[in-house]
């Protein structure tokens, strides 16, 4: 019984050791003006603004030491709401955000968002306002007219 209590305490301390906040998502309306002349399809891909989403990552509960030296990994995956198999969504990091110390590794090239979670980038210490940009491929007039939506899930782990 003591072991069980010990494991639960350990587990709860792991899941409590980081926090992520995310600003707005991306809503794109494809218009006739996105097609360059009758006879053409939409462009091969469409990109969002370079600062479409901001990520804020810090230790939780508050810990000065972890905010300075804690090692975090950001994972990303998608959970389709109304999606089409031919659509391919990617994300990339376009800034390092603000933080007192620590580096950031990866995430500055396009990273395809799958249904399974995959590591997007790693960082050391607390970061505010890490900018993210998105890219969608596969939008086409061949798809039925509809609004295609997916949930993008960011997970931060103390790894």
């Amino acid at each position, binding site marked *: 019984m003591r072991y069980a209590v010990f494991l639960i305490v350990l587990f709860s301390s792991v899941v409590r050791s980081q926090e992520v906040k995310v600003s707005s998502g991306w809503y794109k309306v494809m218009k006739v003006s996105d097609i360059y002349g*009758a*006879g053409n399809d939409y462009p091969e891909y469409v990109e969002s603004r370079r600062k479409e989403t901001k990520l804020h990552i810090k230790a939780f509960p508050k810990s000065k030491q972890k905010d300075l030296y804690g090692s975090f990994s950001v994972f990303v995956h998608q959970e389709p709401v109304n999606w089409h198999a031919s659509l391919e969504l990617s994300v990339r990091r376009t800034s390092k955000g603000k933080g007192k110390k620590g580096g950031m590794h990866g995430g500055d090239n396009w990273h395809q968002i799958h249904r399974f979670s995959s590591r997007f980038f790693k960082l050391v210490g607390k970061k505010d306002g890490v900018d993210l940009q998105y890219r969608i491929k596969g939008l086409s*007039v*061949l798809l039925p007219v509809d609004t295609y939506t997916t949930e*993008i899930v960011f997970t931060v782990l103390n790894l």
Partner: protein
Amino acid sequence: MRRIIIILLLSGSCLFAQRNEKDINASFELQEIALLDMKPSNTNVTLALVAPKDSGEKAGIIMANNSKWLNFTSAIRKGASARNVTVKIDGGNIPKGLLLKLNTAPFQGRGKGVLGNNVHVITLSHRSQSIVQNIGGAYTGNGVGNGYKLTYFLEIQNYNDLDINASETISVSLTLSDF
């Protein structure tokens, strides 16, 4: 007591676990599209009759730049009715004794999708007539060599009514629309 401690710890860890995961939505709204164009777009079709060289022969017909390529882009809702391209004379009248006809060749080019079927030859009038039917979500490709090749030509219907000196400018409109 131990059970209470375990339940408290479990509930605490569940509450905190929400903080390391956040989600946002990415949405892409595709709208209905019906775009139509003709290529080359800056040239008029010229059709003319010339008197026969010898009596008893048929009148000659001169045709210049009488072919155009129909390019379109179409996006429709799932389950929506297909679309047609229709054509009609918008302005002017065909000189007496003549018929203005339009041949629509089968699709050619690099387009994709539900591109429809051509209606081979029609006689143009002030009434709308289909020249391509059953278009779904599709694009033909842009420019000459892509889409449906349209060829205008004249036929003499009645020699008695012909006036070799008559001249007329005719406007033809094409529309991509739902059934």
